[in-house]
């Protein structure tokens, strides 16, 4: 997770022009949406993705490239928006862990078999995620799903890189322990 991303970085040292913002939007909207969708489901993710870019737009004059890559800044906004939906995310994960059906997924008969085949594994992932603290879940999902580097996560969450590393290690250890019994079965 500590490698560079393949996304373009922004050039202006302070502030972002409208054209640069447009580039930022185009380059990142898909990944920001994907990250949000995996956290809280597709429907809410659409709105949160739009809000993320709106917040970024409204604060674009304060963006300081010297503080780090734009990716961390953008995901920091997205993560803050997600915190408003913490209760919803928790209940969805717990429901998934309990019954094996993901409440964030649109129902589609064609996927039912696939979902049942892997449900044991997915239930354990959902359970493990639901057991993590807010900050550890943020770090783990930013690293694993958004593919952010340590530095980018540190910028996004306003933490030191050391804290990110240690918490990520802890979260991964927790995940590995929770998933270990299911791996051989799926």
């Amino acid at each position, binding site marked *: 997770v500590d490698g560079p991303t393949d996304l373009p970085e922004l050039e202006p040292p302070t502030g972002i022009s409208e054209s640069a913002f447009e580039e930022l*939007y185009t380059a990142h*909207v898909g990944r920001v949406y*994907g990250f949000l969708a995996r956290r809280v489901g*597709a429907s809410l993710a659409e*709105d949160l993705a739009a809000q993320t870019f709106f917040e970024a737009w*409204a604060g674009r*004059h304060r963006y300081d490239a010297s503080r780090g890559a734009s990716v961390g800044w953008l995901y920091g906004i997205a993560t803050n928006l997600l915190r408003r939906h913490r209760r919803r995310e928790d209940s969805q994960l717990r429901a998934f862990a309990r019954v094996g059906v993901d409440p964030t997924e649109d129902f589609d008969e064609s996927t039912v078999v696939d979902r049942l085949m892997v449900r044991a594994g997915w239930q354990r992932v959902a359970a493990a995620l639901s057991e993590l603290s807010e900050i550890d879940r943020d770090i783990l999902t930013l690293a694993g799903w958004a593919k952010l580097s340590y530095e980018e996560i540190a910028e996004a969450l306003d933490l030191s890189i050391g804290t990110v590393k240690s918490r990520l290690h802890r979260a991964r250890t927790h995940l590995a322990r929770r998933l270990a019994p299911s791996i051989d079965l799926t």
Partner: protein
Amino acid sequence: VAADDKFESFRGSMADLDEDREQRIRRRFEELRGPIRPADSGTDEGTKVAPVHLVATPVESPRSSRHRRPVLVGVAAAVVLMILIGVMSLVRSSGDSTDVSSSIDDLPLGELAARAGARADVELPPGGILHGTQVEGLRTAEVRERAATLTLRTLEEWARSDGTGTLRTSSDAIALGPGTPMGTPTAEQDVDVVEPGPLQRALPYDELRALPTDPNDMLTLVQSKVSPDDPASAAEWLAKMLSIEVVPPAARAAGFGALELLGAEPIGQLTSYSNVSSNAYAGTDKNGRPWVVLVDPVTTRVTGFAALGGQGEGTFRDAERWLEFGPQEIVNELPN
């Protein structure tokens, strides 16, 4: 590695952004942002935020001028205060708010802790149910002529001592200005609560009754619940705990002590969204972004909390969230 792979593929199919979704996101973004006027191109004028409709004035303490603090602290407090005026109030205060005694409006946290320790203990009797409400305000930025959007959500909870009970949540209400009613919880959205933790899942009742009575121990406990380097989250946790009536007096006193350890200082009085004036105690996180805890100095109950989130330097537009804790009572039955 296998666990990582498993985790990284979890909900992977959801990450795809098809054309329809992309268009909807774009549309929504442009609705929020508004049209770009040619005159604005290349400038930032349009994004400046002024809290012009946020007008509550904190009560100036007669004693505060006699207690001169270091200049830096005073400047920081003034900045914090200006921001918090915006955070905590959307209602024009014309002197008709419910003032508590002006002589205690900058009560130091040490004195507040002493008062809290001396108050009567309230326990949940067998079969008793703790009932209370919490209003949450979520704000978006103000851009150009667009007023900031404030979304209000009310949570109403009934909790037995074993943590079971009912949670009722309102639909979101968009506040457009003073007088906009808050969301009204409706029974259709009731959720049966089966996990321990009276009122907003702060802690199981037994743990509430056994909270530390030493401020340092309390802070250690709080920091084990939230990120240890996140004073704003710690303050929010303490605020929620101190809003619960059945927390023992000695633990309440330790809670205020822990707030002091987090760096909270009195900054006078502030008026909440529902027009209640309370003592305000503010601190900052490591990046200088303020948070504030509102306390009724007479009952020593916390009535509200606000934090500046988001990115940036802590300007008003970062003030995106506040909580207001309504009165609590002990009842005998869950709602129908």
